[in-house]
């Protein structure tokens, strides 16, 4: 067995979460296949169940393994790890594609729609290419999340811009279906080049940027943000905020949110009137940002609250209230860069849609709260209920909201979503509050830092 295949085997079998989900997914897929074409939706969900976790964890896993400070694998193992990443993505693509092929025998059908010209590809091949592209981009994106979150946002932004505008360009060439595979291919090429020759490239880039900036450090944006965060008084409130949110001032958080989210909001707004067809995926990505922001902030703050156990002089329920208060303030600031442009654009362009927009923002805010309280409840060893709640939210509730909740649609749907989300958030709050009484920071340790500069 080659080293790459052994690495693939180790990766897929090492994590209990991946094993359980894969087993559950396989079971669902088998049932769906027995059920025939009627079970196609269940088959899709089963495939997603088996594939989602290994696809999302692939990037971070490779990042951690290849970190110079974790294990000394350079340089040969980087090639092997890259090979392993490619193999895992191909394998996961097959898990998605083969059952569908078995169900529909799509390979026998001629291509539909805009696949024409010299590339007469079959529908199943297009499906396979699309799946491979999405999984590839997911693996690469999550790799960068572990290096620097800012990089991952920049990467996601580039992919989305390309998907939006590159598609139009390729449309002129009658090859719009190739937009995503070409993006993924370019992503793999750039990533491989960087991953295999990372340190040298980083040093050249740094020198070029320094030269362009008149000898200044190219990290000036981060330094500017740091200056904003690193000033101010040294009272108890800024200290609590610094320990929980990583910054003594909310100004820094606001700036960071603006930098990340402001360019994204108008882009999404342009295509938010309908969520049918392929736009559903864009809508899902946009809506997913809100619970994602809630979950990541709450997870980080809950872990960091450990540092306040002895310092703040509070008991566990007191700490819960403190963390909740700080998170609500922070979430408001994270949502503001999206909510404000949405509101302004509505009033400016379509005043009649203001009510619908406000209702939509309220629904999104409540979904963010659901994410926040869910993450706050994860303060003990994860139970089956925790996994199940997360999976239902990720695989069923959010896709459904993305389907039924257009930004400029009926306010009634937004109000209904807000009401449901508020109930879920309230229930999760009670659940989280109870679990905090027995919060175990032994289980909830600070995340290991992976140095960003040493690949």
């Amino acid at each position: 067995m080659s080293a790459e295949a052994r690495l693939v085997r180790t990766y897929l079998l090492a994590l209990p979460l991946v094993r359980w989900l894969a087993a559950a997914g396989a079971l669902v897929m088998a049932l769906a296949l027995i059920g025939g074409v009627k079970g196609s939706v269940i088959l899709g969900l089963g495939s997603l169940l088996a594939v989602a976790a290994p696809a999302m964890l692939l990037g971070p896993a490779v990042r951690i393994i290849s970190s110079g400070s974790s294990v000394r694998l350079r340089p040969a193992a980087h090639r092997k790890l890259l090979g392993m990443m490619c193999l895992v993505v191909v394998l996961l693509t097959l898990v998605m594609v083969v059952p569908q092929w078995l169900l529909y025998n799509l390979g026998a059908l001629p291509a539909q729609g805009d696949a024409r010209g010299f590339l007469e590809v079959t529908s199943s091949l297009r499906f396979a290419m699309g799946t491979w592209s999405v999984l590839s981009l997911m693996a690469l994106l999550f790799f960068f999340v572990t290096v620097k979150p800012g990089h991952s946002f920049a990467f996601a932004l580039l992919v989305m811009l390309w998907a939006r505008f590159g598609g139009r360009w390729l449309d002129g060439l009658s090859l719009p279906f190739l937009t995503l595979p070409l993006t993924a291919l370019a992503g793999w090429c750039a990533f491989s080049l960087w991953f295999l020759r990372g340190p040298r490239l980083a040093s050249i880039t740094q020198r070029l940027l320094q030269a362009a900036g008149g000898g200044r450090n190219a990290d000036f944006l981060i330094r500017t943000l740091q200056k904003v965060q690193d000033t101010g008084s040294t009272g108890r409130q800024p200290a609590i905020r610094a320990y929980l949110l990583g910054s003594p001032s909310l100004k820094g958080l606001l700036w960071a949110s603006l930098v990340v989210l402001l360019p994204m909001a108008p882009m999404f707004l342009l295509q938010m009137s309908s969520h049918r067809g392929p736009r559903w995926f864009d809508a899902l990505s946009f809506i997913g940002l809100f619970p994602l922001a809630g979950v990541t902030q709450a997870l980080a703050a809950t872990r960091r609250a450990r540092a306040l156990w002895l310092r703040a002089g509070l008991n566990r329920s007191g700490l819960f209230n403190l963390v909740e208060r700080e998170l609500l303030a922070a979430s408001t600031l994270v949502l503001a860069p999206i909510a404000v442009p949405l509101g302004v654009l509505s009033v400016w362009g379509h005043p009649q849609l203001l009510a619908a927009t406000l209702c939509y923002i309220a629904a999104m805010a409540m979904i963010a709260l659901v994410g926040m309280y869910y993450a706050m409840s994860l303060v003990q060893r994860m139970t089956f209920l925790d996994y199940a709640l997360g999976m239902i939210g990720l695989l069923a509730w959010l896709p459904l909201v993305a389907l039924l909740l257009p930004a400029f649609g009926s306010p009634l749907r937004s109000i209904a979503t807000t009401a449901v989300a508020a109930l879920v958030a309230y229930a999760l709050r009670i659940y989280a509050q109870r679990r905090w009484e027995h919060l175990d920071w032994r289980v909830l340790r600070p995340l290991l830092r992976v140095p960003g500069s040493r690949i």
Partner: protein
Amino acid sequence: MNSLAVQVSGLHKSIGPRVILDGISSQVRPGDVIGVIGKNGAGKTTLLEALLGLSPPTAGSASIFGENSLHMSAGTKARIGFVPQQDELIPMLTGQRQIELTAAFYSHWDGALLKRLAENWEVPLDRRIAVLSGGERQKLSTLLALGNSPDLLVLDEPVSSLDPLARRQFLQQLLEIASDERRAVIFSSHIVSDLERVANRIWILKDGRLLWDGDTDELKNSITRLHIRATRELPATIQLPGVLILRRATDGRTATATVRDLSHESLPVLEQQLQAQIEVEALGLEDIFLELHS
């Protein structure tokens, strides 16, 4: 005021099916410097975190200055300094800023001591924490734990990233701090020679149990190694009082035994019984640790 800094009774901790601590009981008095040793996974960090209320025990209890550690008052918490194994520093801040923010939590903060220690330990307080080395971060974490002049100082492997010079300097300072009779220090480390130099009491953890809880010197006097050399083959079963480990050489005439609480008066009798010469070797803490875990 309660005379005990820490009291632990029947502390038991399981995570899932794994038992990490299995009925730990002990006491820590002001003036004690306790060194905690054990293999990886023996339960050192869990024990320290359970003591401080960071991790609720499955059974039993821990109290600090007379208060249950899960429900300590703000006043009691302010008397504790803790250096976790994995630091809780904020990468975006400078060391100086981190100190200032931490000081905001305490009514009493010894800034002068921290300034002096930062200079002695060469901690660059003007640099961002994100760019500090592992050792510098560890020193900064220790500074933060000392700022409130704690009556109980708990350090979880605080010297693992320090070079030998820095370690020596750090331990020297720790001795100075611990020389204050009102303070208690609990200090875990894999570097047994450091513990031997600093600790006046030792806790040896093995498989979640406290294998030894007592004075360092008493431990060193208690565990000894016997070198047995006979002129003819030793009997198949050698009966030695308090034997922990017995190793026979292949020639059958020599053996080494690690024994606990050896009575020197019994040696001549043993020599006669075995028709052998017995040499007694005093062991250092590291050897004792190895013998107890072999």
